[in-house]
């Protein structure tokens, strides 16, 4: 049932105008380049914020680093949009790709993690001055965030090696 509707969805997506737009010679590589720039913005801001939570570069006040987060969000938005382009243009290559499943899972964990951060820890850490350590729960959140985003990059880079039907090792596929 689920498999049937997934196939139906993949078929439908492959007939959208976005899918035909992406089939040009340069659209895909250009979108990929933007996707890599967005990734860099995300890791260069959110990743460094996470490192500060973990105790790296403690001379920087956390509130200063937090002002860079909007650029990371900007990078993420670019990557959502370009990601939707890829997914639409080659839906079957992603839906049945274990690396893609793990990439989505990593993003979901990062999403829950960031909500946890803003609901429980943000007020406590935003006043941290130079040299001050983040409390242990905030450090753990920073570690989880960094791990998730590095995993998102790794899974994204590995997508091409696990295109269906070459996923023999994947027990849930």
């Amino acid at each position, binding site marked *: 049932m689920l498999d049937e509707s997934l196939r139906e969805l993949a078929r439908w997506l492959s007939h959208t105008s976005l899918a035909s737009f992406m089939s040009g010679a340069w659209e895909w590589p250009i979108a990929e380049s933007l996707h890599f720039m967005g990734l860099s913005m995300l890791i260069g801001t959110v990743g460094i914020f996470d490192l500060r939570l973990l105790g790296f570069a403690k001379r920087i006040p956390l509130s200063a*680093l937090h002002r860079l987060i909007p650029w990371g969000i900007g990078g993420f938005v670019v990557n959502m949009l370009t990601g939707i382009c890829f997914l639409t243009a080659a839906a079957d290559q992603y839906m049945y790709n274990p690396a893609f499943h793990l990439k989505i899972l990593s993003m979901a964990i990062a999403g829950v993690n960031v909500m946890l951060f803003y609901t429980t820890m943000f007020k406590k850490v935003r006043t941290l001055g130079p040299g001050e350590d983040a409390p242990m729960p905030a450090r753990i959140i920073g570690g989880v965030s960094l791990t998730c985003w590095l995993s998102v990059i790794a899974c994204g880079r590995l997508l091409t090696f696990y295109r269906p039907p070459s996923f023999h090792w994947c027990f849930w596929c």
Partner: protein
Amino acid sequence: MLSVWVRESPTMFAFPFILVVHAWGMGLLAGANAAVDLRILGFAPRVPLSAMSKFYPVMWFGFVINAVSGLLLLIGYPTKALTNPVFYLKLLCITVGMILMSWVRRRVFPRDAPLTGNIKAMAALSLLVWAGAIVSGRLLAYTCKHLLGDMKC
């Protein structure tokens, strides 16, 4: 022998893993550089620029892991890169980017010098060459003509 290992080792830790490390390093090097460049260009003015001197170890770390992983990828498929003009464009972008990175660092840190038009121009150029390095790196996969020896892509 190293070349054959990079291409043919069945473990996850050869070719795919090297690509993953290369993407991580790119994020750190280009991302941290872009953050400093954007700040110099006047975005997010409330971020204390002096605090950003701590970004440089992150950039150097990204550079070192990418120099190593990039060299391994080159050893794995030397013909693929060396016969492609885009590869030399990528190297040029990285070289200019690293020179600008050191130049800007000397000019701006640690004495919080005023951000002259010169420094801003260099920051803008830095953004451009890091974007250029990313684009040319990505295009390597699409402009490849010779994969290995006489083998076509």
